[in-house]
């Protein structure tokens, strides 16, 4: 029993910090994409093109391979390549470009006419971003963050496979190595509950703030 509690806590820790760092990196990146895209309020084809390619590049790595490729980075930041904290590095790096795309998409959903109205009234760029773009896109951004967190829960189980700890690690040890199905199912049920809880919370928050 204690093993499951321990593994769940490890997973929660991985997911929480990986999500946090993915958002810290990804949200500004997505905003930058939107502002610099052709027709954006700070149009810059060079910046947009570069970001676009980098994000696509990072997103085309299969996660398992990205983890291995990022071992040196994990060692640099955390000091080791295995364990729960070390797994946070590749998880955050893998999720950040995903977050950037989600953010870009959410901001693109804001009616161009609404942004134009803000421009026509004499808003500065900062005012457009913080007073118009972000508030208008917030319900959609929250939904996007929900999807991100759920993705990271899935990835974190994979991270367990190569020494990341958490529920994924537990599932592999019992299910794969010892062929003990009941423990395997328990981890699956815990993961399902986690995903459901995150999705329900995300939906609820997004819906409660959406005035459309």
């Amino acid at each position, binding site marked *: 029993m204690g093993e499951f509690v321990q593994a769940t806590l490890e997973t929660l820790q991985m997911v929480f910090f990986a999500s946090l760092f993915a958002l810290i990196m990804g949200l500004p990146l997505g905003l930058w994409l939107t502002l610099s895209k052709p027709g954006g309020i700070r149009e810059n084809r060079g910046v947009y093109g570069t970001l676009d390619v980098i994000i696509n590049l990072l997103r085309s790595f299969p996660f398992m391979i990205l983890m291995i490729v990022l071992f040196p980075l994990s060692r640099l930041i955390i000091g080791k390549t295995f364990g729960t904290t070390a797994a946070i590095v590749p998880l955050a790096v893998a999720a950040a470009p995903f977050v950037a795309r989600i953010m870009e998409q959410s901001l693109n959903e804001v009616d161009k006419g609404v942004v134009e109205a803000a421009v026509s009234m004499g808003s500065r760029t900062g005012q457009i971003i913080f007073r118009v773009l972000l*508030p208008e896109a917030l319900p959609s951004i929250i939904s996007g963050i929900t999807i991100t967190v759920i993705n990271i829960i899935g990835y974190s189980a994979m991270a367990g496979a190569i020494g990341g700890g958490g529920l994924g690690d537990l599932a592999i040890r019992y299910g794969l190595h010892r062929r003990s199905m009941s423990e395997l199912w328990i981890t699956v049920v815990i993961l399902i509950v986690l995903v459901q809880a995150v999705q329900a919370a995300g939906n609820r928050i997004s819906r409660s703030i959406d*005035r459309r």
Partner: protein
Amino acid sequence: MNQGRALLTASHLSKHFTTEDGLLHAVNDVSFEVKQGEIFGFIGLSGAGKSTLVRCLNLLERPDAGQIIFDGQDMTELNPQGLILARRKMGMIFQHFNLFLQKSVYQNIAYPLYLAGEKEDRIRDRVMTMLDYVDLKDKSAAYPSELSGGQKQRVAIARALAANPKLILSDEGTSALDPETTRSILTLLRKSVQDLGVTVILITHQMEVAKSICDRIAVMEDGRLIEEGPVEQLFVSPKQQRTIRFIQTLEDEIGEQDLKALSGGRVFRLTFPGESARQPILSNLIRRFDVEVNVLAGNINVVRSGKIGYLTIEMAGDPAVVEAGLQFLTDQDVNVEEVKHG
């Protein structure tokens, strides 16, 4: 009102876009002047370049060439900071309202006041005044999704007027509204001009809108301004054949090709301005001259300064008598044009 000084002078404005079909001259060497306190309308079919033109005025589109002097400043020469400040002296309303959907009615109207750096209590006073002005006092806490189209446009007008701009730009501001709501919005705009001394530049493809609210109208076609003048003049005696054709198109009258003479006579388009629209001129014509008259089409337009009647008739008879009849009509202040057959 025509004696007011110029608030906005545009000279030789041009804006082109590169499209798949080549270069599109959306605005082609357009010059005009709008005086303080007037309602100046641009009318034209869709694709005539009106929208691009109005968007050039506050530099939502940067013109390729030309000058826009607004309130003594050349808009095209301003640095970004100057442009932001100049835009705060203009309000804009849009066809699809463009309200902030996640902000309440109150917050929408407060936004330009926040931009202007007003204090909280001053903002509250002003928003309440504006809500009262547009008759939406009970909707302060509502969100745009809870409002009807007309109410949304009222909020947009309140937002546009909140920070005391000198100029309101309307980009098809009534095109998405039903006729009754359109009338109430136009009344509100007219009232704003009278009460607040604001100047309005509007574009529309709706003849009714232009006729009922504008002091002066400019007609646009293919990016060019083909004729401008006071509303009455433009409807009664347009100088350009293209304007006449254009007005006819918009009125959705019977096309000229359908106005074939029924009994071999000549076809004329008569315009009865003001007083003469109420006189029995046509029956006088028939009584005094030996001519056959067939009425082919007719219409009465209500403009701000009165009524203007249009009649397309066929006149048959002795050529000399027909000429005399035409002279009679001209003497009665009726504008007569022969409808050519092609």
